[in-house]
């Protein structure tokens, strides 16, 4: 039986990124190469300082690389101007941050509706659609609560709703379980996998929490600014500590 061909969502080739550090330069990425596919949850793992977050920032266009090629949905990000990248990000990418980054003075439904508003959907319609997503992730009754009235797990559910509400094709998650206890982290990943994964969507998760590696479809291991290996079976992946 033949497997269906993989469709590439994100392709990163030989990406180099350095930062000025006094008179010298520090290389965060030293020729990283990676491919993420539609319909998969790709987890980028590795020790602190190996360049995971830098790679994630370059994939979503919040950071420019010095060398190499970055293609997202067949768009060459290096060839696009800042404004075009911002518009592209607004329409096509959903974000889940480690610290949630929910605006404390907005309610859950208002926070979740932000990407829709950024995409030009008017407030009431945006909040209606955000309310539906909040209900799907199981916190519909908390829609009028402010972030400080929610537990960490509930806040992350609002963040997931915010990432999904405008139906982006790429979801970027930066350490989504780092601020959560183990049980809540597991539930969050279950929710993410069940609600975010879609044949026309790619989910990239950066994490060094080995308790959630089994949620990945593939794991890309990074070390010292390079992708040192990609594992198709996460259960067989054993990180070198």
């Amino acid at each position: 039986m033949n497997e269906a061909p993989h469709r590439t969502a994100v392709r990163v080739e030989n990406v180099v990124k350095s930062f000025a550090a006094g008179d010298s330069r520090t290389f965060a990425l030293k020729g990283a190469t990676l491919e993420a596919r539609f319909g998969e949850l790709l987890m980028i793992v590795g020790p602190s300082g190996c360049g995971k977050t830098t790679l994630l920032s370059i994939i979503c266009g919040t950071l420019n690389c010095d060398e190499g090629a970055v293609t997202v949905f067949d768009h060459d990000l290096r060839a696009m101007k800042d404004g075009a990248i911002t518009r592209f990000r607004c329409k096509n990418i959903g974000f889940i941050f480690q610290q949630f980054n929910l605006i404390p003075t907005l309610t859950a439904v208002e926070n979740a509706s932000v990407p829709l508003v950024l995409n030009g959907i008017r407030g009431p319609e945006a909040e209606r659609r955000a309310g539906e997503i909040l209900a799907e992730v199981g916190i519909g009754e908390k829609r009028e609560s402010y972030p400080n009235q929610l537990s960490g797990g509930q806040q992350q559910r609002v963040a997931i709703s915010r990432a999904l509400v405008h139906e982006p094709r790429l979801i970027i998650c930066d350490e989504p379980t780092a601020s959560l206890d183990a049980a809540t982290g597991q539930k969050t990943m279950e929710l993410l996998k069940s609600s975010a994964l879609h044949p026309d969507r790619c989910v990239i998760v950066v994490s060094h929490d080995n308790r959630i590696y089994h949620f990945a479809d593939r794991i890309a291991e990074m070390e010292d600014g390079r992708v040192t290996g990609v594992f198709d079976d996460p259960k067989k992946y054993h990180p070198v500590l």
Partner: protein
Amino acid sequence: MLTIALKMLFRDRAKYAMLVCGLAFCSLLMCQQSSVFCGLMMWTTATVRNIGAPVWVVDAKVEQANEVIPMRQIEVERVRSVDGVAWAVPLYIGIEQARLSDGSFQNVQLTGLDTGTLTGRPMEMTAGRIEDLRLPNAVVVDQVAVEKFRRKGIAIQLGTSFEINDKEARVVGICHVSRSFLGQPYIYTTYDRALEYAKPSRKQLSYVLAGPLPGVSDAELAARIGRLPGLRAIAKDDLFWLTVWWYIKNTGIPISFGTVVLLGIIVGIAIAGQTFYLFVHDNLRYLAALKAMGARMPTLATMVLLQAFSVGFIGYGIGVGLAAWFGNVVLAKEQPPFFMPWQVPAFVAAVIIFICSFSSLIGLAKVARLEPAVVFR
């Protein structure tokens, strides 16, 4: 996004209240002090406005309306001889002492109007008739005299008598006029009788009031009369501003009020600028998240500007409203002086706009430097 910006502002109650209070206090301070200053300047021109003659002729050395250098009586005839003069009448103004029935004294500003025409008469009579000034020993007093005499236990009414320089004065009318700078009551009488009340001196004519013929402007007439040797003629509006500027240049009043206004501006910039900076700083992480999610710099800049100008507008409204309320309260008592021309709220608005722009720029500088990638750190 603008609604979101306003929600972010209004729901951060502590900073919102601090911002609005700071700007309201700043607006109140500037508006109230500027209005009291303008009111004080209006008091300095009370004589000009109360008399209201088109052209004032004075001694050539006179610099402002409250400065009286007596002239010879013949000056009235000289002015009348100038081409373009429709009429010219004498006016006496001097500070005299009124002695009340209980023996106490009160300084008054005695105003002697031309007996025939009563030119310069008060516009508003609250009791009696101005024409009765032609009766023997008749005077008309203003509301300040009524108030000051009442404080001394004497109720002024029609028929009340007191003395001016040992000569009887009988009240035949009560008028309402603008208060004088020194707060002395205006006592109106005829020119001839004013000279009888005044202490004798060689020259007693204070001003010559003149009006132009049709087709001649006040300024033009003033210029023609001004060519007479030893005389200076000033149109009413020019005399008004000449007097105001004289007080601005020759007294410490503007420095005193200016210092308070400056303090208001500094307090506004310090409180509003610092609080708004903190507000933006506290929200920087969320603004970065918005930037990462696709908010463009113009959108974020509009949000920050809207927030700054919203608190500016609300603070300005409260401050100017409180100043107006203060003005209404004090105007009923006629002191302290208070006059709020449109330029005062316009000036305060300009300062508030400056403060809001300054605060926004500080915030925007931080937002502009913001890397969206910071949200991943």
